[in-house]
């Protein structure tokens, strides 16, 4: 069956690819484009490991078709750092040891980026609800939430006592 030609912007650069209808955006990112940072934990929208930002909205790339990316702007975990300089969110996750196996981490970092883009000053409750769709088998979430609250304060130019 013929593949569809899709043209999109991925991490600020124009990207063109061919994909089959049943391929998800996650399949395309990982298997066609070679951006393997986004993970497939479940493939059913439950775990958030595949989180990406599409036109300013956080979505599960496993629940979007690759063909739907036509004309869209997509940010993946690979687009979060600035060259070799880690984004403050990534730096803070390291400092707080907010990861163990790291499988959930790309999704959590992308989801945190989307949270702070929309709400630079979330309460802890808001942060926990926002991240409720990102499952982590290892950390128990507390270090994640502490890292998120602290980096939010840093990015607002405050420091938490």
């Amino acid at each position, binding site marked *: 069956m013929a593949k569809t030609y899709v043209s999109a912007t991925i991490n600020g650069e124009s990207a063109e690819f061919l994909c089959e209808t049943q391929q998800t955006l996650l399949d395309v990112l990982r298997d066609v484009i070679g951006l393997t940072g986004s993970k497939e934990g479940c493939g059913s929208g439950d775990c958030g490991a595949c989180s990406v930002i599409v036109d300013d909205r956080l979505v599960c790339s496993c*629940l979007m078709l690759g063909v739907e990316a036509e004309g869209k702007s997509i940010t993946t975990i690979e687009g979060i750092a600035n060259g070799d300089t880690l984004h403050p969110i990534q730096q803070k996750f390291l400092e707080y040891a907010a990861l163990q196996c790291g499988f959930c981490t790309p999704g959590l970092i992308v989801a945190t980026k989307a949270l702070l883009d929309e709400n630079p000053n979330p309460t802890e409750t808001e942060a926990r609800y926002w991240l409720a769709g990102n499952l982590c088998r290892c950390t128990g979430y507390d270090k994640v939430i502490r890292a998120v609250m602290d980096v939010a304060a840093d990015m607002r130019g405050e420091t938490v006592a």
Partner: protein
Amino acid sequence: MTSLSYAAPTSVDDAVKLLAGSAGLAKVLSGGTDLLVQMRSGRLKPELIVDTKKIPGIIGIREENGAFIIGAGTPGAVVEAHAGLNAAWPGLVEALDLIGSTQVQGRCSLAGNLCNASPAADSVPALFAAGATAIIVGSKGRREVPVEQIPTGPGRTSLAKDEFILEFKLPVRPARSSDAYLRFIPRTEMDIAVVGCGISVTLDANGVCTAARVSLGAVAPTVLLVQEAADVLIGHTLDADTLAKLDAVAQAACKPITDKRGTIEYRTKIAGVLARRVAAIAFDRANGIKNGKAH
């Protein structure tokens, strides 16, 4: 292997032609948060996917003669950010907001929730309670249908093969009107309703109910609109007697099943309790008492 085609038409006519012309199963795609899960599990094997999101008007919210019109494919996150809808229809907004995670909210739509036709769909009782109508388009033109006529059984709707929903129309809101939605789940996020309840009311200056619609989810093969429950509210304030009657008629309307989420007896009891609580929140809101989110 498979021969799955995809089209993203930019007009209603093109979309209808594609749906009508498909030899095999054709599915409309909004947010894909049900459709893609079902396709990936192998439960659904469509031949054609018609992505309707590029049709003008199908995404977005507008006001027409004082009534809100919500595009069928509008993502939950867009609805929740709309101040006017939050003020006039807090129950509908909170019901849609309960669906899934932030990621799911970026995509999930009212039309998808309604047409997936799960008896436990969260926004559907609120949509029934609101008295919303769906503007349906197809080969024979357009028709406007009360939302409660759309789901006909689990996973089944009254829409013809070549039809889809373009938008939802909410009625003009009289003064002292409001709504609320609650679902019961064993945790606070990311679960499917054991029971859901949506209620919309209009009160007079003395707090007496002059119009009501009551809807229950997850207690029958489809979401139910419970006329008997509306009847016990109309003409009354929400006193102890009215609450007791509401509880009883809500329980009597239930035809649930027993599954891992709850037994028949449990679901029936919960339906009565939820109806009381939702009515209290909706009456408070209609009386101008702010009470935040119902959940």
